[in-house]
């Protein structure tokens, strides 16, 4: 027979369990029609996701990468969830890690009809990923401290007259890591090593992120720096005295690096049909146009997509030739190399 105290204890325990289950249940909701992992900045992607939902009636569960994780957070999750994939569509704000996921067999083939007019160099021959709306690696220049016309090439970072006055993000994550990995892939190990050596020797200030590069330059703490076009546009829209310079545009120069968004269908995606619809929407001309007109000012890879006057067309630029398959394969090796060099 239960003693009164243990009877009360059981009731109390049952009550507590019911409370906990209720609280956890309250945190639950109806399952989504499609799960999107999105590394594009939340403030831009959210609007587009809502538009897709209202057009199709499908419920999207969009999960974003925290800025501190620089894409790698979602990539890490996709890999960790390999035994039970829960993501259907991966919208990456760069390409190298998407290629790495494809190399590891984590992506499925899907040749979206929306991608038909995207140039071939932005599409995987096996249709495991498609690239679109790009950022470019540019110099952001504080026009009160430096003349943009004086800057032409990436090598200007090492000019002694700018010593202590220029900055770039540490190449441990994000587009700066991709940029240096692409340099190695394009110009070989010897030139890559020389470039990295010069970064160290020339006193370039290595800061936390591209966002911090933008802040330091717009506030005049640095004369100029290497960052992405979206960061530059934030400073420009904020009314700061800044200009952008696309480096290496002279004939025969290496060209500016374009880092496109990429979208992919996950292998064993739980909701493949809805996922394909979402991919078709993301790759549509309308979305690329909206991204060009948004604050991030993404550069359309399709020449005929409308864009505001301050957004360059990919066709107007001299672009660096990039073997993305190699960049995707190399990126982890380079990350380890740069970590040992710059994290000291």
């Amino acid at each position, binding site marked *: 027979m239960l*003693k009164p*105290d*243990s009877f*009360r*204890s059981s009731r*109390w*325990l049952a009550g*507590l369990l019911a409370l*906990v289950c209720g*609280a*956890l249940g*309250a*945190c*639950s*909701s109806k399952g989504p029609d499609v799960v999107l992992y999105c590394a594009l*900045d*939340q*403030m831009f992607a959210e609007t587009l996701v809502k538009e897709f939902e209202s057009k199709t009636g499908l419920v999207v569960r969009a*999960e*974003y990468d*925290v*800025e*501190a*994780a620089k894409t*790698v*957070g979602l*990539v*890490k*999750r996709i*890999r*960790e*969830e390999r*035994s*039970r994939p*829960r993501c259907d569509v991966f919208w990456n704000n760069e390409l190298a890690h998407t290629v790495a996921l494809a190399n590891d067999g984590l992506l499925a083939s899907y040749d979206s009809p929306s991608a038909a007019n995207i140039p071939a160099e932005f599409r995987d021959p096996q249709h495991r990923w498609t690239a679109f709306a790009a950022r470019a690696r540019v110099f952001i220049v504080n026009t009160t401290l430096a003349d943009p016309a004086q800057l032409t090439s990436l090598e200007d970072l090492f000019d002694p007259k700018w010593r202590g006055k220029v*900055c770039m993000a540490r190449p*441990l*994550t994000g587009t700066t890591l991709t940029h240096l990995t692409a340099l190695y892939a394009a110009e070989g190990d010897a030139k890559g090593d020389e470039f990295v050596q010069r970064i160290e020797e020339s*006193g370039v*200030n*290595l*800061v*936390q992120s591209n*966002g*911090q590069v*933008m*802040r330091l330059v717009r*506030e005049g703490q640095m004369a100029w720096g290497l960052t992405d076009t979206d960061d530059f546009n*934030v*400073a420009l829209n*904020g009314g700061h005295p800044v200009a952008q310079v696309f480096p290496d545009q002279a004939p025969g120069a290496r060209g500016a690096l374009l880092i496109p968004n990429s979208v992919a269908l996950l292998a064993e995606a739980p909701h493949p049909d809805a996922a394909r619809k979402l991919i078709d929407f993301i790759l549509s001309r309308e979305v690329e146009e909206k991204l060009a007109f948004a604050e*991030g000012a993404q550069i359309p890879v399709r020449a005929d997509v409308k864009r505001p006057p301050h957004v360059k067309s990919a066709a107007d630029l001299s672009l660096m030739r990039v073997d993305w398959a190699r960049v995707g394969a190399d990126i*982890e090796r380079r*990350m*380890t190399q740069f*970590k*040992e060099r*710059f*994290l*000291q």
Partner: protein
Amino acid sequence: MSRPLVALAAAVFVLAGLAPLAAMVPRVESADLAAIFAPRNLELLGRTLLYGASVALIATAAGLPFGFLVSRTDMPFAALLRPLGIAPLLIPPMILAMVWTVLADIRGAPAAYAVSSVSTFPLVALFSARAFERIDARREEAARIAGGWRAALRSDLPLVLPSVACGACFAFVFTVNDFSVADYVSWLGQPKFSVYAAEIFANWRIESRPGLAVATALPLLAVTLAALVPALVLRRRGAMASLSGDFRQPEPFELGPWRWPAFLFCLTLVSIGALIPAARLVWEAGGAARGFEFARVGQAFTLAIERGREDLANSIVYSLCAATACAALALVLGHALERARGGRWLESLVVLPIGAPAVLLSVGVIVLWNHDWSARFYDEGGVVVLLLAGRFAAFAILIVSAATAALDPRLEEAAQLAGAGPFRTLTRIVAPSLRSALLGGWIGVFVLSLRELDATMLTPAANRTAMFRIFNQVHFGRDDFVAAMALLILFLVVLPGALWSLFARRRLELLP
């Protein structure tokens, strides 16, 4: 003690806090362990230890006098400055770093030392204040009669030092486990000022060696435990020491002409750590360099509430659930740790989840819960609550065990002699006596959960929280929105403690 209840609570704690860490261990290979001893890693570790020890020392130099002045003197506005002194601990150190690198133009290692010291001095201050209050008036009077106030202070010092050392140990632990401050402020430091926690974060991204981050975390975990175990021992000699039944409250020291300089000293510390950063956030919300206007502050708050409403609500719900779960766990486990034989040895196991790098716990949760049978739980908010409870339960448990130590065990014995069972004794006798400790633990977990980002970064449902949104907006220079959201978080963080201070008669137990 009700054994089934203790077993149930222990099982929940193990599941929430220890199992995710255990799930990561099989990933470690011998090559990963060998990497620990690479000269570069050892150099980073050595630098981090020096950094942590120096910060603990500076935090002590600031926190000890602050704790003494607000708790034992006739300094003006001491009652106001005392709760304000906790505020720097509640503000994410990254926000302090962002504000002070702009305002003071300090960079590199000195900036990291300064920001971390400001952020952690309240730990020493809290422990010091409590210890100074627990000195029996008669002992102090005897010393004062023999040699004046200086003699009284000299006799007090050995009594408060264990508590001060305990606070310093906690300051050390907080410092060595954070890399965001060093990472943010070291961009002009030559040589670069990197710390060991950054190496763990970097290794976490190397996919081909999944055990490397775990292996690299081991030395930092060992260092953390090596600091926490003495802290747990020291708190028994200091802040947690039982008060005898005829304890007499000590008299306040009269500062005379030093009253206002002392006030200025405390005000300066509080200003550097909380008031100026908060003012800067208001200024950012109001338009900052574009031209400050109060109307813009209102607009920024409207925007923050409009866009961040759902995220704020999620943050509050998760934090409330985690805090409530931790308070329940703390009542059972905190009491058991203090009363059970060998319980004190288990304290080092309890602190393991707060000593381990957050990202390991986060990946461990994926490994443990991302299965078909647990899919619904993994996808939704329940897993966030479990993760937060696992990470922070130790704070509530230690606060309750400290309060249990000060509780006369004869009360429980008397209840049991009168026929009350262990459960009834716990809920009817022990719990009411530990009310302020339970609430202190609840508030501690609520606050820590509300501002947590690292541990929840990879958890699906934690993707929609206020901290997540703040950090994503920082990137796009939405300074007004970020500032308004940060102020809303600060308001929520301070609210429970402020309400208690305003309406409760008893002082909140906030010390572990």
